[in-house]
């Protein structure tokens, strides 16, 4: 049996599909969440039609009777796919309804709001300031006498004699204006901001 090339397409169904897609997309691009949901339902219907078209002519319902040429049935595989799709679409719709309801309860709104965080990123002039801040050279791992046990006082005294040099040698570990942006040790501003957040 040679393979049949090309499937004859049902323009009736395709035109209905086209209209459903067009209307569905139009609704999908709306800000109202309800309309978006309705748009999704139209798109689901349109897609079901698309799959249905691949089944060919209407033919016989795919209920097996002996002696029937399998080509005479409407293709059962697209039908099985659509059946799945119908029920899944319902589940999606129900989920969207849940979202609509929750959005309404929380914000008394039925709209898809813009993401303010994304907006913020878009308006950021450059990257994290901390990353580009110059840092002073550190010439020790043991700043301020933390190095050797019980030696701190003598060491500090030694440095105090040498005023100018001492300034360079006492870099507190994160002496960079970091705007609270990072650092494992939270800077004071970071802490106070946290308190504010708790109060708000």
């Amino acid at each position, binding site marked *: 049996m040679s*393979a*049949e090339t*090309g*499937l*004859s397409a049902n*323009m*009736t*169904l*395709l035109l*209905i*599909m*086209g209209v*459903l*897609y067009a*209307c*569905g997309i139009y609704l999908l*691009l709306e800000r*109202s969440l309800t309309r978006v949901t*309705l748009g999704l*339902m*139209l798109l689901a219907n349109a897609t079901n039609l698309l799959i249905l078209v691949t089944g060919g002519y*209407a*033919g016989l*319902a*795919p*209920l*097996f009777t002996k002696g029937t040429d*399998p080509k005479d*049935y*409407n*293709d*059962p595989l697209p*039908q099985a796919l*659509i*059946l799945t799709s*119908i*029920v899944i679409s*319902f*589940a999606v719709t129900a989920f969207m*309804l849940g979202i609509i309801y*929750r959005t*309404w309860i929380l914000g008394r709104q039925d709209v898809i709001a*813009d993401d303010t965080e*994304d907006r913020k*990123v*878009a308006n950021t002039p450059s*990257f994290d300031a*901390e990353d*580009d801040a110059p*840092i002073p050279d*550190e010439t*020790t*791992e*043991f700043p301020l006498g933390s190095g050797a*046990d019980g030696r701190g006082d003598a060491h500090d005294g030694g440095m105090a004699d*040498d005023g100018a*040099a001492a300034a360079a*040698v006492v870099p507190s*570990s*994160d002496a960079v204006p970091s705007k609270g942006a990072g650092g494992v040790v939270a800077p004071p501003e970071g802490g106070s901001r946290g308190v504010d957040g708790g109060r708000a």
Partner: protein
Amino acid sequence: MILVLCSLFAVAALAPVFFAGMGRNAFYVLAAAPAAAFVWLIFQYPAAYGQGLTEHVDWIPELQLDLTFRMDPLSWVMCLLVLGVGALVLAYCARYFKDKDANLGSFGAQLLAFAGAMFGLVTADDLILMFVFWELTTILSYLLIGYARARISARRSALTALIVTTAGGLTMLIGLIMLAQLTGTSRVSGLLERAPALLAAHDGAAMAALNVAVVLVLVGAITKSALVPFHFWLPGAMAAPTPVSAYLHAAAMVKAGIYLVARLAPGLSGADSWLPVILTLGLATMLVGGYRALRQKDIKLILAFGTVSQLGFLTMVVGLGTPEAALAGLGLLLAHGLFKAALFLVVGIIDHQTGTRDVGKLSGVFRSSRALGVVAVVAAASMAGIPPLAGFVAKESVFTAFVEWAGEAGHAPWGPVVLAGMVLGSILTFAYSARFIWGAFAMKPGVPPTPFKPIRFSFLAAPALLAVLSVVYGVWPAPVDSWIQPYAALFAAGAPGDAGGHGGTSAGHLELWHGVTPALGLTAVTFLVGSLLVWGRDAVSRFQSSLPKIPEADKAYQNVIGALDDVAVWVTGRTQRGSLFFYLVVILAVAVAVPVGVLLWNGKPIPSKLYWIDPGSPLQWLIGLGIVVGAFGAVKANKRFMAVLFVSVTGYGMALIFALQSAPDLALTQMLVETVALVAFVLAMRRLPPELRDRTGGRYRVIRVVLGLAFGAAMVVFALFAADARVATPISLDFPKLAYEQGGGLNVVNVTLVDLRAWDTFGEISVLALAATGVASLIFVRSIGHSLGRSAGVETGSVGRVAKQPTGSLAAAALATARRFGASPSTVGGVRRNPWLVAGRTLAPERRSILFEVVTRLIFHTMVVFSVYLLFAGHNLPGGGFAGGLMAGMALTIRYLAGGRFELAEALRMSPGLVLGLGLALAAVSGLAPFLLGGNVFQAAILHFTLPVFGDVKFVTSTFFDIGVYLVVIGLVLDVLRGFGAQIDVELEEESEVAAR
């Protein structure tokens, strides 16, 4: 080998436990691991220098990925350094850190794991395996450099090291894969055997590919070994604790690049791209490093730039590809490991005891600790190449090798240039070695002696031992010579490594005294000029500061990263606009434009194989018109429920289309779904305002219209092309026969769902359960809310009572009448009446409809029975689990609508979660049971038996699966009713009570 590797990692994994119990002394326990491995290594000497020691475990044979380890002379020498220095550094850590230092456990674990990774790296005989260890060292070095997490310098330099070495590593991976493809093996040993043949074949394309691969691999080596232009990460990495610097940045990790060069040199040093890269970058690095080392004010940075310089030096020597250079290279590698690790450990002690590494502040340290000074002077002298120390022996051999190489005819004029550069680099090395000793130990005029706490011997032991070894190596180089000779012999004439045609006969020997040779003369020049530089150090320093500032590589790196960040922010800002509309427009426009563009590009005409009216069902046109009206109505409607109704029109239209297209199952299911969905919509949206305002107007509307039309038209065209593109016979032509013979059912669609494609359906009901749970979690925010409670205790007429009195007199009268009749459930005008519904009495009288209650009473059970019929008949007739479940759900919906939420609770007392779970479990069991009985998952069996009333029964086991589907669908509908129905009822009542108060 694998055992040793695993033990190293195992001890590392246990490290935090040791530290919890023993404090910093746990470092001694950790040091014991590489020390034991070192002893093991000594005993492997005969094996490594005989046949070579190979261990092999299959990893992913399909990809030719093996865990192959091989111990040969080169690995053995590298292991000496890795394990020996590793043990010493870990022991040193026990005195460097304090018990109260944070994160010691993880630090110790990382340092030991690093030793393990290095061991794996130098013993791996598989390119990919080696790469794995290579990246492991990169990650561990990132963690180790960033040990002081609270310091920005540590974090930043750790990240720099990670980015640079990872970028190099990934580049190298490409090169390694190319090498494996070119030679047909990923075994390092095999690759080295085959590479010379490849080089000799002079096949143009292969040669070009090989050269590219070599350069890519070398990029990995030069990033890891901090060669120009990637050298800047190494001085930055000095933010690491000094023991880490001693190990990673002197002895081990930065040697990984050198090791890679040494490993590949016997096979690939003949490639055209090899020597130019090695010599140019090596020489540049040696000079840049040495020059900058002379300018440093921090003794640790002097060493860091010195290391950069020496790494360039080592790369040149190891990569040259002559026997003499190979011998000298490994000799220098060992010598460098010994003296540089010792010097770093000395710096660590000075920093630890004085609290500074600043040249300008350290003064008189030699007087405070002569032992430390002696160790440092010995090590620094070895670095400067002063006899009779290891550095001298090695450098002497290097000069010998390069004098001979530069003298060969083919190497003018670059040979002498390289040699001269090398001598200049050595002069700089001499000078910065002296500067280091002067900076760290000398008594400086005008600077008071730095306070220095006496050090214990245990702290000094590790650097002292390394210094002693430098002396032993220098005085008695014969053992080292014998360790390296087998490796150098790989490059001898006729050996596979002689692909470059250098053809030296013998590698010579590492010796303290070679006699009066050109090399000795070069050494003399080095010392002389070096001494002059030291003597005139002030002048040198002034000269250096007077030069115009050359842009430093780390600044360039920062600029590149900064620019990258800016680009990232820019791109993110342009693309991530935070507007769903924008994203959808982009996605949809691309989805239309690209395929249409391709179709136009190919210039195919639109397929004409189509028909306008299906002869089997011309009515489709009529239904289609209805659907179109519904779709446009949905678009235009500005009332919420109107829009929903219009969408429902399309949905019901779809059901008719299915019916006309010989798809009874679809028609049935769609009809039921549409009804349940409509109810769900109304229930969910009753709190929202009725108006549906169009908020996306203006030019957005134009975009929406254009995009909608374009998408719809494009989909029609795509569908035509897709239909026309069918070339194979549809697989579904076999389905009717399969369904009947194997699935035991006449309804092909249903058998497809529950048997032929049961996996799909199983996935689908999982999604249903997920969506149902999602609905419940969106609605029941405050509580699980799964106990609605029975109706028994509920006050009659309490549910949904109208709180506000109606204003109109007619409405008020109607309400009063309704209340009077509904007030008592059992008596109206003295006559007892049967309650039609169990919980109907709980509803407020004004909410009740006697007609609805009666109808519900009449049809509920019929519907349930019918749903069961649909479920079981579905195998042979239209129906099945989906339709049945929806029918049962519809029955529940009617009960809820007629009798309120308590009626729903009375109708089905299970929670939706339980129903969903039972359904899924049943479906899963029906899939697994055949498997456990020895068949395939979801295999169905057909059983014939006789029942008393029903007679002969044919039962197909896939029915159980369908029952699972049935239950899941009921669970979904129940969740919708409980959420959008009952819960919103409760919330509305609460609200109206609040409003009434």
